């Protein structure tokens, strides 16, 4: 079977991520002890930040899909909701997990309940867990779709809030290192590896969304065909 676009993106993304991590481990410059408690753990940055970026893409897809279903009753948008929730779950967990490991090493604690950004991101991930598990416990139908698309819409309010939080509340979580407009906000080599990571995660998550939408489309079509065949038998 000839690979589709989604599969190519998945493969490209996976290879890119593997390369990023190798570079992060072997090539990216170390940070000084003055700036970080745990310079080794700082290398998690090349995983943590791109996966957070990918999670934002996934939650964006979730929001778009939820809105599209709620207001337009679009089947394609429902598939996007499903794909977004699954991608958000995976990338959200990656971000939270890597953040906890880095936090434990750097701050001495894996979590900080007073940090708004950490907690809103954690809530988004929890929302994704809820949507995926909840949807799998129910038969597909308008009631299921309306209920979970509703959650997807409300949950997305957290996304811009999370992004802004680092600019407004500089608590424990570091502020943004890119896109601040400051000169020399990040070392050139580090930026290169980070950029490669972001690109790779973007490819992976887009590939996942496309493939997941295809899976949902196939499942829906199988359901329709089975109904037709059931009537034939009767």
């Amino acid at each position, binding site marked *: *079977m000839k690979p589709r676009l989604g599969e190519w993106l998945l493969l490209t993304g996976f290879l890119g991520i593997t390369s990023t*991590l190798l570079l992060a481990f072997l090539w990216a410059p170390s940070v000084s002890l003055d700036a970080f408690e745990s310079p*080794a753990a700082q*290398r*998690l940055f090349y*995983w943590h930040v791109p996966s957070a970026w990918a999670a934002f893409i996934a939650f964006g897809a979730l929001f778009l899909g939820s809105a599209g279903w709620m207001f337009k009753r679009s089947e394609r948008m429902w598939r996007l909701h499903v794909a977004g929730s699954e991608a958000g779950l995976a990338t959200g967990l990656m971000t939270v997990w890597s953040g906890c490991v880095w936090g434990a090493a750097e701050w001495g604690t894996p979590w900080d309940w007073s940090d708004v950004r950490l907690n809103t991101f954690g809530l988004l991930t929890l929302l994704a867990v809820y949507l995926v598990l909840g949807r799998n416990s129910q038969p597909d139908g308008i009631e299921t779709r309306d209920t979970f698309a509703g959650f997807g819409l409300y949950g997305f309010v957290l996304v811009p809030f999370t992004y802004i939080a680092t600019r407004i509340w500089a608590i424990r979580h570091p502020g943004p290192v890119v896109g601040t407009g400051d000169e020399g906000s990040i070392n050139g080599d580090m930026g290169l590896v980070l950029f490669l990571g972001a690109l790779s995660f973007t490819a992976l998550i887009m590939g996942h969304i496309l*493939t997941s939408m295809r*899976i949902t489309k196939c499942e829906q079509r199988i359901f329709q065909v*089975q109904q037709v065949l059931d009537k*034939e038998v009767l």
Partner: protein
Amino acid sequence: MDGMTYLAVGYFGMVVGIGLWTYTVVIRSRRLSERLDSIEAALPSEDAKEH
């Protein structure tokens, strides 16, 4: 184990994890496509044409 070793193990685990996740998604997509093709072949021709 020192910090870098932990990091190496962690990275390796993550790569394996993402690899497994990607693999299961691709395999599921392909199996569903094959299943769909085979049951669509069982459809009467008018219903197959509709879609």
